[in-house]
């Protein structure tokens, strides 16, 4: 049957084009590994090597000579973990108040929160820098963690989930037993909003891990950097030693991407919901 055949060809061509898109999406990760496992000479040669080599450990050794990798990793982990925990706590708590309580000024306060959401951070960055100088926080990780400890997007997102995902009956029951606001939050709300917290947590963690601009401005101390800033400096200083730089990229970036793919399905569904609200 001609019609059936044509349908099949069309179905196949859809997948061919989509696979092309997938290849383009994923290719950089493959190529980063290729570069990180070969020598720089291999990369510079023509034709270039297209497959993994055996030089990864040597490249990593060079990397550790040129860059305080574990120090930067430690700083990045501290910043990401602290920011994430604070954001989860403050945002879900504020979201609970907005979702389930009436109080004077609530409407205005929430409208303010929503309208300030797209304000570019660069508008504030010079005075932020000056504030950190005054506080004596310049060059410390506090300068990154504290300003990021609560954000509008997270409150907005958690409020949506809390108002529909936390049954009023449960809150009423808790109230009758004498639980105040904070005990309701701890015993009723937190268990109910765990799926929304999971998304917000992953999102915040990745954003903090990948952040570049704020650490670039605030971390003035060259021996206390986050991975992203340290990588950029490594590249600026040794831009011709690709295999060594790529070993750094591999170690600093690929694990996060791999971990992400585990949570990816639920996360992507939530991300579209968050974006379209």
């Amino acid at each position, binding site marked *: 049957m001609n019609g059936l055949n044509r349908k099949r060809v069309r179905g196949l061509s859809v997948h061919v084009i989509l696979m092309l898109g997938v290849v383009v999406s994923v290719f950089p990760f493959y190529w980063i590994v290729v570069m990180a496992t070969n020598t720089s000479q291999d990369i510079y040669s023509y034709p270039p090597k297209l497959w993994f080599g055996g030089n990864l450990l040597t490249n990593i050794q060079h990397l550790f000579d040129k860059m305080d990798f574990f120090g930067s990793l430690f700083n990045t982990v501290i910043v990401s973990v602290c920011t994430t925990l604070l954001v989860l706590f403050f945002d879900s708590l*504020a979201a609970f108040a907005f979702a389930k309580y009436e109080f004077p000024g609530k409407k205005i306060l929430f409208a303010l929160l929503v309208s300030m959401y797209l304000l570019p951070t660069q508008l*504030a960055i*010079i005075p*932020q820098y000056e504030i950190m100088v005054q506080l004596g926080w310049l060059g410390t990780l506090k300068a990154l963690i504290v300003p990021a400890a609560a954000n509008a997007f997270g409150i907005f997102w958690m409020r949506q989930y809390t108002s529909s995902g936390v049954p009023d009956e449960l809150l009423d029951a808790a109230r009758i037993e*004498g639980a*105040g606001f904070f005990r309701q939050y701890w015993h009723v709300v937190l268990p109910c909003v765990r799926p929304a917290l999971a998304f917000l947590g992953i999102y915040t963690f990745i954003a903090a891990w990948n952040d570049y601009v704020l650490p670039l401005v605030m971390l003035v101390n060259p021996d206390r950097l986050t991975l992203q800033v340290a990588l950029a400096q490594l590249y600026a200083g040794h831009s011709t030693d690709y295999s060594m730089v790529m070993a750094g990229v591999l170690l600093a970036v690929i694990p996060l991407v791999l971990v992400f793919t585990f949570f990816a399905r639920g996360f*992507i569904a939530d991300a*579209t919901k968050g974006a379209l*609200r």
Partner: protein
Amino acid sequence: MSSSPVAGPAATGPSSGSDTAPVGRPVPDRPSGGPGRHGRRIRPVSAGARPGPPRRVTRYWPQYLAISPYYLLFSVFMFFPVIYTVYLAFQKWDGIGEMHFVGFQQFRFLWDDPVFWLSVRNTLVIWVLSTVPMLFLALVLAVLVNSTKRFTAFYRVALFIPSITSLVAIAIFFGAIFSNNFGLINAILRSVHVSAVPWMSNEWTIKLVIAALMTWQWTGYNAIIYLAGLQAIPSELYEAARMDGAGPVRIFFSITIPLLRPIILFTVVVSTVTGLQSFTEPQVLFGSEAATNPNSGGPGQAGLTTLLYFYHQAFDNNDFGYGAAIVWAFFLLILLIVLVNWRLVQRKERRP
């Protein structure tokens, strides 16, 4: 804020099962003496309500306490700084010494500063070069994924991954493959007997590389957003159109595009706001030259975006007043472009 066609769980698939659909508007449950939902006078003992009703506002202290961290941080690290930046734009200040009020001098200087206008032009060119193919490809990919039932979960994950990847890492990667002499792209060109292109030295190819980087990072993300919108379009509409004899192209332009318009508007606004703020890409790619030439941004300053110029003025030259003027002027420009975009997409909506 709400975009109607994508409200239901159908938009995103059943993958997160615990997310219940909104069950009516939750009634505010503040314990009060009035006729509450339960009608009876069960008087819940709230943390704040001790014997004798306290005054109106103080009764709500737990709520105010709960929302205070955000507003406190926002005031100190965002609201006050944004206002203070306005003030700074009228001063001359290096961050350490005395501040001098200079009136509109910074803005007058800005108006006559060819480097500023060059940076604005660079930013706009890079934005157009990235946003147009990005949104177009995203729509194509979304329609394709939507037209099939197989491997869709795999496609979604694979297309989404670039958007969560570190920009620094990706900039380094693009710098490597587009390298003037030894990059992968030039090796491929050489294998088909095309002479190597000095990607990182030419005014236009520098912009192309930065735009390609942004396109690579955000196409999949926008495709996923469009896909959610496509899945929310009821299939009866398509069937009805097919019965009326409309072909796939006609269906696409008469049904898909109009119903997708709110989402297209959303993606246009977001990619305008983020696309015009490109900074990390040129900073990582051409950062090493900053020490010798503070206005750098690559050969011919072709990759000097406005935010990169702002960063150099403020944090390399310590010219905080001028930096403040640049960033405010640029913010107003972004606002203007967003409004124009908005009007354009809105006006098309009225036509059918």
